[in-house]
């Protein structure tokens, strides 16, 4: 692992809020391993809109205080064992959401407004357990019309992995626009990429269409196969065997510790 990735990870403060993307959108797994090595603690994770092995590993490593998410799962490999254990033990604070509520909170931050209205939710136990979500009577309706307001989500940091960046700090995210939402909403955005290209991404209208401007990008490091064992669109597929191996190991505290330890040992070697 490049020391550059550690330089990035070191910019995430203990106690801060970190937004991470869904499995298929470019998960910063190399950075996750760096965060575990550094031991950044008391993180609040915002899963956009769901979490996987990244969240599970950070939770297993005891570095997570709270999770806002619509789900945490290892996909085909089953439930997220460390997340599930932490829920059982009550060792993390849960902010259960539904996908569009997380998008709505980020959108409010993107738009610079304190809240976004959202349909749905009324009558659910999700709403009942979220004192930060407010139900109002739609002021633009002449008939009674209850509607939920989702407050803006302002992550301290957004982290993700993408195929490429240019030397100005523009990052190509393709059609994974949740990555842009995260960056718009976050105070800082740290990105690992497969490669840095010499060509300015904004100079080509075709590439520009899928480019997150450097305005939103705080720092970048190269991490080859940085999403592994997750896949990266157009680059490499998900390593399902490795995720299954993790799923099995992480069923027990010892198995998880071994998995993490082996990982660390590999890094140190």
């Amino acid at each position, binding site marked *: 692992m490049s020391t550059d990735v550690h330089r990035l990870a070191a910019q995430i403060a203990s106690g801060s809020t970190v937004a991470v993307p869904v499995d*298929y959108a470019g998960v910063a797994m190399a950075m996750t391993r760096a965060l575990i090595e550094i031991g950044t603690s008391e993180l609040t994770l915002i899963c956009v809109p769901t979490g996987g092995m990244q969240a599970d590993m950070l939770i297993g490593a005891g570095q997570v205080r709270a999770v806002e998410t619509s789900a945490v799962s290892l996909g085909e490999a089953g439930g997220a064992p460390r997340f599930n254990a932490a829920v059982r033990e009550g060792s993390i604070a849960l902010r*259960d959401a539904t996908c569009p*509520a997380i998008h709505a909170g980020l959108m409010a931050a993107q738009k610079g407004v304190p809240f976004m209205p959202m349909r749905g939710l009324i009558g659910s136990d999700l709403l009942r357990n979220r004192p930060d979500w407010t139900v109002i009577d739609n002021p633009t309706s002449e008939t009674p019309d209850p509607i939920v307001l989702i407050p803006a989500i302002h992550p301290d940091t957004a982290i993700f992995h993408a195929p490429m960046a240019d030397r100005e700090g523009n990052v190509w995210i393709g059609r994974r626009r949740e990555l842009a*939402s995260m960056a718009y909403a976050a105070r800082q955005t740290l990105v690992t990429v497969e490669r840095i290209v010499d060509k300015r991404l904004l100079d080509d209208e075709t590439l520009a269409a899928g480019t997150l401007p450097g305005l939103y990008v705080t720092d970048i490091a190269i991490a080859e196969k940085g999403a592994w064992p997750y896949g990266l669109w157009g680059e490499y597929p998900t390593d399902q065997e490795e995720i299954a191996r993790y799923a099995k190991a992480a069923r027990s505290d010892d198995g998880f510790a071994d998995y993490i330890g082996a990982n660390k040992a590999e890094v140190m070697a």
Partner: protein
Amino acid sequence: MSHDMSPATPREILICTVAGLLDGCRCVAVGAASPVPAAGAMLARALRDTAGEPPLRISVLGSEAHNFFTNGSAELFDAAGQGRIDAFFLGGGQIDRHGNINLVGVGDYPRSAPRWPGSFGSGYLYYVVPRVILYREEHSPRVFVEKVDFISTPGTSEPDVYRPGGPYALLTGKALFDFDKDKRGFRLASLHPDHTLEEVTAATGFAFDHDPDPATTPGPDAATLHLLRTRVMDELSETYPAFAAELRARIQTTDRKATA
């Protein structure tokens, strides 16, 4: 049924039932890791194409080949809010008599045990998609309960709540149910072949309406089964290779049994 084809397997009947439930839809979205709903949607699309009818758009979340969205993972929810998604599928760790769904876990929240992944988009899509098809193959009293432990999303809403969507059908490994919004409950539509009313009643933790002598879920005609085993199987293999392989193996087993 044509001479050279083995009869439809139970899974194939489920897939064909899903396709039938999508009749008249223009656009269907399927969540990640939902192979039977995805196969049903692909079959409905193939049938539509074969009949020269208007195309059915399908978006399978997480798939690159069968996902036409380009605005990130928020776009499905936006499109649903715009009324462009006619049908969606939801599962449930627990589903209760009023169509309430629990995707969070068993026991007292927040310390659920077991804890399931979470509510995903259900807390929104169940309200706005007109035809939400509940799909859960395991038909047992631990799934179909009188009252869910946690309402990820409710089956019905008060009259003043904006709710163009809701439950349209419940499909299990044993039976197909309709949902009656006014009565806030399920009604048995048909039993799958080789399943009985007594068995389904015992496997369901809540009461439901039914005819004294319920219909049997129809199997596919030969043309439909052929389409499923050719074009749809090819499409499935791309997105759900393991599931397609298993489906193929079952067909061969049935085949061997039939010819034995």
